[in-house]
């Protein structure tokens, strides 16, 4: 019985990446080289941005030497029997590895390091992205040999599509018994003269092919590339920002980097007095932490985290801040780069704003603000939509920029406004909880400090975050809980924080609260319209 078996290759791509063309090329190359080959695929609706795979088998002995016999190929990839996996997206590579496709004894894996995030990863209020390092480690552990590089970037740089890059990677790996020229010939469309002029798209494909070919076939360059990709930057390595000497003396070294950034942020936001308030608040936390952890075994992590979250909270986002950020000269330059405008192109930038009653009230003194809010509530009670002005401001126009600059100049108004006072009260409430928690147990204080992450953004997002934080502080940080130790309390707060960032409806958060013996958040009123009809009798 003949034991020779086909070379097997699984190709993973996303819909619209040209995986179909790639497999067609490969089958064509095999045919022209005189080898039996077969490919299959399951495109279906996956062509609409979903994940899909293509599968190729090539018999390693030329047809001419088979004596008229024809190999029987499998139509689907067989787990554990693959010679190669080539994938344009890292999560999809890991998925196939997870399906048992790759084996450390046999499979060569060539994968793009690029991620195309799934909707599930993108839609979470916090950071729902799959851990790229873990994906890469999995690929490494379950492959005979692996090549990792950013195929999307390579394709972009060469002005071509990712399928050409994948073809180059396959050719460079030497997995299939075809010479480089055979691959290039198919890209050229088998033009009789290999030196003949090719059109722009073909030239770009050939460029992408060559880059990938070199990346995979040149082991040393490749190894260097992988090392660079694998070297994750130290998460705490912050850009050095100079710190005023007096502050450097007042705070321990581990806090410095974050403190410098935070202090600069608050200073930039509302001036020196406000920055002084920031320092004063931070010192209160530092004093408590020093008392709770005099040896500094935790490297002043509470103070460090408060330095971060307090700065962000104190520099809360409002229309003044947004106008300030949107009207900076650096911003215009960034937009030009993002939209890839040519030097001779004109770029018009329109900003979408929709300030409503709360945004206006925020800048008014409390008494006046209350009246504005009450007016808006009354409007809504009459069945009208909340008052808001949808604006499309042309930041490239004179009038638009002048408006933005005028808004940005209202910094003074902000400090006298109602929202400013509200935010300060809430900040103090949170800091008091952190201080009380830290006195009780260092970890408890740390967990409450980390809850600063819940505060972000504008409008309803911001309101939701504040409500969640208040609920956690009231029910998990201070109120008596059944059979509660400080450690359990800390666990409960950590769980609630993670849950609060899982979905915006707060379903996970409520579940976590109840699990730890706290009440769920109060039900928020939601309008429901019943269309009452008399029971129909016919």
């Amino acid at each position, binding site marked *: 019985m003949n034991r020779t078996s086909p070379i097997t290759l699984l190709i993973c791509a996303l819909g619209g990446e040209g995986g179909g063309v790639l497999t067609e090329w490969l089958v064509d190359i095999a045919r022209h080289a005189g080898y039996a080959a077969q490919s299959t695929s399951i495109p279906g609706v996956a062509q*609409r941005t979903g994940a899909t795979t293509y599968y190729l088998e090539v018999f390693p002995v030329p047809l001419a030497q088979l004596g008229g016999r024809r190999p029987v190929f499998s*139509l689907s990839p067989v787990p554990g029997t693959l010679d190669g996996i080539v994938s344009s997206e890292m999560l999809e590579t890991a998925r196939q590895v997870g399906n048992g496709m790759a084996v450390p004894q046999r499979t060569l894996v060539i994968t793009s390091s690029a991620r195309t995030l799934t909707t599930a990863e993108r839609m979470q209020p916090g950071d729902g992205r799959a851990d790229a390092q873990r994906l890469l480690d999995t690929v490494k552990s379950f492959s005979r040999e692996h090549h990792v590089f950013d195929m999307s970037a390579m394709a972009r740089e060469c002005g071509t599509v990712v399928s050409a890059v994948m073809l180059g990677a396959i050719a460079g790996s030497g997995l299939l018994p075809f010479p480089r020229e055979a691959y290039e010939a198919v890209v050229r469309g088998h033009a009789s003269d290999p030196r003949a002029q090719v059109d722009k798209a073909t030239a770009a494909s050939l460029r992408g092919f060559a880059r990938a070919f070199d990346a995979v076939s040149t082991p040393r360059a490749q190894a260097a590339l992988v090392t660079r990709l694998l070297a994750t930057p130290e998460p705490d390595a912050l*850009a050095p920002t100079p710190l005023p000497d007096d502050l450097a003396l007042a705070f321990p070294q581990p806090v410095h980097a974050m403190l410098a950034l935070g202090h*600069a942020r608050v200073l930039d936001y509302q001036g020196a007095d406000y920055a002084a308030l920031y320092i004063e608040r931070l010192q209160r936390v530092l004093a408590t932490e020093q008392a709770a952890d005099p040896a500094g075994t935790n490297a002043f992590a509470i103070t460090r985290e408060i330095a971060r979250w307090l700065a*962000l909270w104190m520099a809360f986002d409002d229309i003044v801040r947004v106008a300030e950020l949107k009207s900076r000269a650096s911003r215009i330059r960034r*937009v030009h780069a993002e939209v890839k405008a040519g030097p001779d192109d004109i770029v018009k930038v329109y900003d979408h704003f929709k300030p409503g009653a709360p945004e206006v009230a925020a800048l008014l003194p409390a008494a006046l603000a209350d009246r504005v809010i009450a007016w808006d509530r009354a409007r809504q009670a009459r069945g009208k939509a909340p008052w808001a002005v949808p604006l499309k401001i042309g930041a490239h126009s004179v009038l638009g920029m002048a408006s933005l600059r005028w808004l940005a100049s209202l910094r003074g108004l902000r400090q006298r406004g109602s929202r400013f006072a509200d935010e300060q009260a809430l900040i103090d409430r949170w800091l008091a909880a952190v201080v009380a928690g830290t006195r009780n147990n260092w970890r408890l204080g740390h967990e409450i400090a980390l809850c600063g992450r819940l505060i*972000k953004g504008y409008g309803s997002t911001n309101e939701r975050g504040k409500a969640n934080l208040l609920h956690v502080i009231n029910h998990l940080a201070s109120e008596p809980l059944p059979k509660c130790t400080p450690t359990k309390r800390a666990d409960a707060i950590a769980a609630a924080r993670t849950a609060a960032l899982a979905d915006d409806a707060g379903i996970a958060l409520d579940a976590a609260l109840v699990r730890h013996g706290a009440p769920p958040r109060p039900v928020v009123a939601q309008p429901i319209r019943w269309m009452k009809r008399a029971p129909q009798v016919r």
Partner: protein
Amino acid sequence: MEVSFSKEIEALRLGAGDIFHGEGILAITKGLLQSGVSYVGGYQGAPVSHLLDVMVQAKPYMDELGVHVEACSNEASAAAMLGASIHYPLRGAVTWKSIVGTNVAADALSNLSSPGVTGGVLIVVGEDYGEGASVIQERTHAYALKSSMCLLDPRPDLGRMVDMVEHGFRLSEQSNMPCMMELRIRTCHVRGSFECRDNIAPKISTRALMSEPAGFDYMRLAHPPVTFRHEKLKGEERLPAARRYIIEHGLNETMPGEQADLGIVVQGGLYNALIRGLQQLGLADAFGESAIPLMVLNVTYPLVPEQLADFCVGKRAVLVVEEGQPEYIEQELATLLRRRDIQTPLHGKDMLQAAGEYGVEVLATGLTAFARKWLPGHSIDSAQGWLDGNKSRRAAVAAQLDAPLPNRPPSFCIGCPERPVFSALKLAQLDNGPVHIAADIGCHAFGTFEPFSMGHSILGYGMSLASRAGVSPMMNRRALSIMGDGGFWHNGLLTGVQSALFNGDDAVLLIFKNGYTSATGTQDIISTPDDESKARAIDKLQSMVAENQTIETTLKGLGVQWMRTVHTYRVDRMRATLNEAFTSDYNGLKVIVAEGECQLERQRRIKPWLASLLQRGERVVRVKYGVDEDVCNGDHACIRLSGCPTLTLKDNPDPLKVDPVATVIDGCVGCGLCGENAHAATLCPSFYRAEVVQNPKWYERLLHEWRARFLRWLQPAQRGGQPVSPA
């Protein structure tokens, strides 16, 4: 149409001795022409869409041959088309996706099978079963059994598949039975080669017309009392004739093996997977030489009792490899062995799993059990080691990954006009409370995936309005039915709209009018904007679907009183219109036509146009949306309201913040949804719309330069202290 088939059309012209290289489904298409088919119809659906698509695009060549091609409005109309072969010696073929398409066609198929056919009939169904399937997991086999149609399941080898097409027509003519050919997904998309024969121009064709209709013959009607006679004919004449043909022409293949006292009966379509499974056990070589004799059923109905009895008799054991449930072939084989008192032990679903696709791993697991029992001398250690290795490796990967990987279902394309409607629907439900949503088949079914996760039921193509008829009378809130224009014309107009109007139902129907049947490959339908209006349009960027008013006039003609047309990208207006429909005092059928051209088709139209403008140095405005990274709050509410693939995340450039910020990547087509959502939902103010003017006019440039000067004067130099975030 999404794909252009110019190369494939050339391949259809190949003659005797030429070698065809390409996909399975196109080989079948070539097979039809080699069989002298007179007419071809069908309804597109993966995995058989290409058959019809390529024929539609090859119209000039089809006209040359005299072949009539009809893109039918649904599978029922395709099946009814086969009625031509009842009286006339016309070979006809139709195609669709099964099981769903066969369900729709069932009525016509029953009424076709009863009188039987004169001209050969071949129904090519894409058996959408197993990995990659998008429909209910059921087998077409049951239809062949109940209506007495032959069922071909050819070995996935292009040459064999084409042979079976030609045999299928002759088999149909010899037995008067319609023939179905089931092709699995991977078989349709397999790339291979075969040696062609010449195409045959049909004797009766659009070029050689019949002059007289057939005479009246009551026997050709599916009408009592002759239906009783038909029933008898099926068993007494047609099935025996079919069996004779199968034997005489060797349609099923018997392959010998050294273990002559064992045997495997396999559906033709599973042959390759079975061989790979046997290879894993060391029981077959690379060329399909098997140690165990095989009976490959290229025809799975009718079975030929003598052939199977001969194969089984005297063997120690036989294994039936039959995918899906129930195990029709195994049961019939058991009956025929029992009747003949053949004592050969029979295995099948006792060793192979009942449900799901028979991949190599599944088959090898069953074969291992078979070998353990009947080939105790043959070592299965290597195969068992491989199977166990797969299992333990999967467990090890799962452990290393810690959390399950997020799924990646298909979703709305970049700039899809249907996405904004789901954004609006999400917002409308905040205004008036959650509603029951009857979903449907089509691209809009992607609304059932994240981030929208909407839809309570899917009952079939075009069935959404009908499927809420029992819900809305029982509920104190209005239910919403969602339908595409594809589904509307396929079925929804009659089963839904007509019924709701007749019964005076209080219903809300939203029709996606994108101009094409998009999920199946953007084929044209009756409401597709015509080429003339596309060519006439001065602003080619705009959606063209308003040019065709067939849906609106049809609804008006039927008597729909409440109808609103809303451009889908106007999220606020769509939200208001939905609210109006949910709360209106009008208690009849309320129809919202959600208008917006399929973005795939729009891009296909405008890309070459824009390229030509740029080449001529003319003014072109390109729109792209973006997010200011320092303004974005990292909450991703915009993504939960959109899900656009180009609206994604990147690391937060602000070292103080930890959550990633939203970003718009290359590929954004500037559809405008980001801005609309930002306004409609009062999202954060981080979105901007950038209009890049390429080749601007001289006065524009002048104005721009003056503006830039003013802007520089207005903008302060970066204030002292630290820049707030790296720009």
